């Protein structure tokens, strides 16, 4: 098939990812990420953590109201150990994805028992 035969009405390439705009803010307890993904509902969003890479994704299918769209943005956590990764939470409302990354509590100082050999 030569290059000139490519049909423009058959879209076989996947929908390109758009980069959502984010706001990153920090309190003593947590880091908060807000990402704009207009059109995406709670069922179309995913938040994944793989080692130290956090991936935010959103998708909305084509409808009579709007074309299909995909969003994706990845972040690398500088030091994953600073966060309480088990308690990451996310919510999606009104086209905005909010992810909370709580900071890990500082471990209490403790004494280590010395056992006699």
């Amino acid at each position, binding site marked *: 098939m030569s290059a000139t035969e490519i049909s423009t009405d058959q879209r076989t390439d996947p929908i390109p990812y758009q*980069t959502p705009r984010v*706001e*990153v803010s*920090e*309190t003593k307890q947590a880091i908060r990420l807000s990402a704009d993904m207009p059109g995406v509902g709670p069922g179309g969003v995913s938040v994944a953590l793989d080692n130290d890479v956090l991936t935010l994704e959103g998708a909305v299918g084509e409808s009579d*109201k709007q074309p299909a769209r995909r969003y994706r*943005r990845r972040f690398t956590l500088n030091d994953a150990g*600073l966060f309480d990764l088990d308690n990451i939470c996310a919510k999606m409302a*009104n086209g905005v994805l909010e992810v909370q990354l709580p900071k890990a509590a500082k471990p209490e100082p403790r004494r280590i028992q010395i056992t006699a050999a």
Partner: protein
Amino acid sequence: MHIAMTPANPFERFLGRPWGFDEVFDPVFPGAPASTSVAGFFPCFAVDEGDDALTIRAEVPGVAAEDLAVAVDGNVLTISGKRESTRDEASTVQRSERAFGSFSRSFRLPDTYDTESVSANHDNGVLTVRVTKGKAVRPRTIAVESN
């Protein structure tokens, strides 16, 4: 068309703060530079003219329904609203790409549209406004009466 802009230093740390982020996989950046605030909220609009209706879509994520207004004055349609930050007052901002504030866009509708028929729907951060074409403008046959 995608404009790819890579950050100057992909491993840039946020001013040495221990809780910062590095963005490694982020080749496409569609707007303002990452570390500065964006002044003014300018939602994206899309206007589609169909066979019997005009559809205007405004991307307004994070705008509450009660902060949106759609008004018609004569044949001018105005979509306005405001987005307020929900950020904790006590927090510090590490990266700010989302803008806040008021916006207003007006559209002058051609006479072919029936301004009485404007409807608006708000879902998942998208406001969709629809105006149908007036019946009088659509092709119609006129009965001829003979005396």
